[in-house]
């Protein structure tokens, strides 16, 4: 089986996996990183949202491991606080402040998507921007997600 190398949450990793295996399964089933959740495997629900090379969101369920280069830096929810050298990323803190989570299954993906969106839009985030978030929350925490992101955006000013 081919060997693949990349940087995961700041650490170099090397893993044997078929070239076409999606990164989600490499993370969850081979490396034991369970923060990114399976919700559909179709790049639809966004429960597995992670970052690549900075706070750029993508869905590892839809990326073959062969597309990940040795220099690529992958961040999962587990590694998010370290990117800002804090115990919690400010968006995670906003999630706590607004008690956003219910069952919590989608929330790692929601937070990773929100961080990327805020990186792109900054404190000028609008309702239209928030509408562009595709992550599903079946518990229906959408309104608190909006509140938490707006609060995190205000903190960025």
């Amino acid at each position, binding site marked *: 089986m081919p060997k693949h190398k990349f940087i995961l949450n700041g650490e170099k990793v090397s893993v044997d996996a078929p070239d076409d295996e999606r990164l989600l399964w490499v993370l969850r089933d081979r490396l034991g990183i369970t923060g990114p959740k399976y919700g559909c495997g179709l790049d639809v629900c966004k429960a597995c949202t992670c970052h690549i090379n900075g706070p750029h969101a993508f869905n590892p*369920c839809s990326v073959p491991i062969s597309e990940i280069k040795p220099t690529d830096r992958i961040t999962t929810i587990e590694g998010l606080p370290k990117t800002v050298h804090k115990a919690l990323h400010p968006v995670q803190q906003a999630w706590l402040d607004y008690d956003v989570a219910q069952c919590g299954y989608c929330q790692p993906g929601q937070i990773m998507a929100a961080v990327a969106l805020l990186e*792109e839009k900054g404190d000028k985030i609008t309702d239209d921007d928030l509408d562009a978030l595709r992550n599903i929350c079946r518990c*229906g925490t959408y309104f608190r997600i909006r509140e938490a992101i707006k609060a995190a955006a205000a903190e960025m000013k």
Partner: protein
Amino acid sequence: MTLSTTESHPLEASEGADGISRRRFIGYALAASVVVGAADLSRVTSADASIPTVQPVDYFDLSDLLTDAALATAALITITVNTNGTVSFALPRAEVGQGLTTAITMIIAEELSLPMSKVEVTLADAEPLLEFNQLTGGSNSIHSLFDQVRVAAAVAQRRLSEAAARALQAPLPELTIENGTISANGRTIGYGTLTGLGAVTRDTAVLAELKPQSEYKLIGQPQQRIDALEAITGKKQFAMDLDVAGALPTMLCRPPTINGRPIRINNHKTVSEMDGVTDVVLIPHTDFVPGGVAVRAETFGQCIDAVRALDVTWGGGPVDDKSDADVLSDLIKAELPLTPALTGNSTLDQRFTFYFRAGDPLETNCAIADVRADSVEVWSSLKSPIFAQQRIAAMVDLPQSHVAVHVTQGGGSFGRHLFADAAFEAVAVSQAMGKPVKLMWHRTDNFRHGRVHPMCTSRVRMSYSGSNVVAFDQRHTSVATDFSHGLGEILSATLADVPEGDFLAYSQSIFLLTANVPYNFGLATQLLNEVYDIDTFHTSSVRNIYSPEVTCSRELMVDQMASKLGKDPLAFRLSFLREPRMVAVLQAAAKAAGWGSKLPAGIAQGIGLHHEYKGYAACVVELDCRPETVNRKIKNGHGGPRVRKVTFAVDVGLPINPLGLEAQMMGGAMDGIAQALSYSLHLKDGHFLEGSWDNAYYTREWNAPFDLDVIVMPANSSEPGGAGELGVAATMAAVANAYARATGKVPTSFPINHLDPLGFTPLPTVPPIPQSPTNGLSEEF
């Protein structure tokens, strides 16, 4: 103070010297090296044991029934004080996001005057002795557990206090109890020390005095979820995150139609030799599992590849010839007759149709199972774990005591986890392969083969004379709802006229225990009939049993009646409502929403009311039906009318955690919006067309309201009502009414978009699941 014998009774409230009313119960300190408090409320229920066959829902509802059934084994509810000063409780209910572990932590911390951080609540394994006290359903957990947990905690508190009184040489009334310590005479001892001193060597009856409501410091105050930090850091573990030795990823290849049977694998060797695949096994259809072909591999990615590569010969299923219109026709034929109309009265008469919808949590059906020759171990999110354990024991032909069922944290439920479908499959597969398996459903399977809320119709006829409503008739007709998960057993054990295994009787009992008309509309009759056997479709109640449809139909008709009589929907309701608590929530919601304010053409408000689970709910929404909104472009998604604002007032009697209650109402509102406007499954030739979240239009961020206000009414009772499902029906009805007012068209089939042209291309049924995309990096933002 004298101890009563074990002949305890609903110990009446007594008034202490401070004038505060205190409720007393008998509980037990159990023999152990530390203090273990247990509740015993079995006698409390005896007063109500003789339950008439049919009782008006006003006096006895589903919450009462479930609570009474649970109290019979309250003595098994135990709370342990540990030597490190913490308190532990194994909760005999599921946590699926509803916030129960947080609320129970609050209740225990309150009764024991502890910080919440010192209370550790875990999910109990299946414990058959609990009988009916380990079912999570009917929004009943808080209602049924409130007294049980408090009494067990109060027993522990009493033992700790008595130990402290001896150690500190002070009488009980002179003790100061706070933050897990007890002080007197200038000395302080912690619970960790006291627990050994208060322990008993044989079970001992203890008079437990509950903390009076006026002294509550935690209950009624907003508290954040106890698992919030774990959830937002990715540390919260769900079933598929557990590392069970040897349990490799496993998936099933499922039939092209609902309940189709696997006949033969035509390429067993080819698939067995695929990368990473360890096993390929045909799982026949049985009474326990629908069947399919199971594959086990190193990763789920390899399972998906193997499932897609399988060539299977399938037998048909029981509904291969059925589509939406056929089911509708069967429902209409089965509708029970209306009460004959009185002459001289006018009537409004309308039938509403509600299509199938998925009870799909974000975590798909999943379970881990390890079946050995003489034992079974299972991990799954289960709301009815005793039922699961019983059935698994029967499946593998072992005594129930040899089957360990661990209840994991659930990633949502919405009725799905009342059943143990994934657990049964995992057991069947593990047994067939002789290996542990980590079994997970694909999302597409979850939509197409998972349990659905049954399609139904609700016909309402309101009779009126002058400006008065004189009769209200509702005939609800539904595809049979499966209650075989334990709720049915509770009904047959509790209600005299419900024989075991009589599924229509189960359904009709539940209908009568939940359906209600909160208005003075004269003679009200609400009746249910069902079509098909319970295993024709895979059904369950989905975040409410009958109420969303029953209530939505009723509230739409109330608006029509108001219009007929030239009344405003708010004024009309206020003049006919029966109960002051319902009036209060309606007034609160209407006031906060600014009912009647001027809105642009195409935008309208709507009202919906709902009473259930000892609670009262009123919702006012503002719905935007302007063409520019309805037709806004959403990539791979559904826009449609948008609820701009939700105002929700809720009275649950005694709110335990107002923050959690708000969350439940918000979530319920999102379900109500989806059910009214967009979320359904289309049945065509025996299968559902939807196979992804971009097909089944549950509320997404672009459908969510910009404003959402939940008003929690102040405590007006010592009894906490249910919350998990309370938010759905009122919101669904409010959205439906707003749609009628905004467009001038009264919607009669739901969701409102169901009969529109399909907004997606259905995925193939063979292979049953789609391959994951490969362009994920181009989709980043």
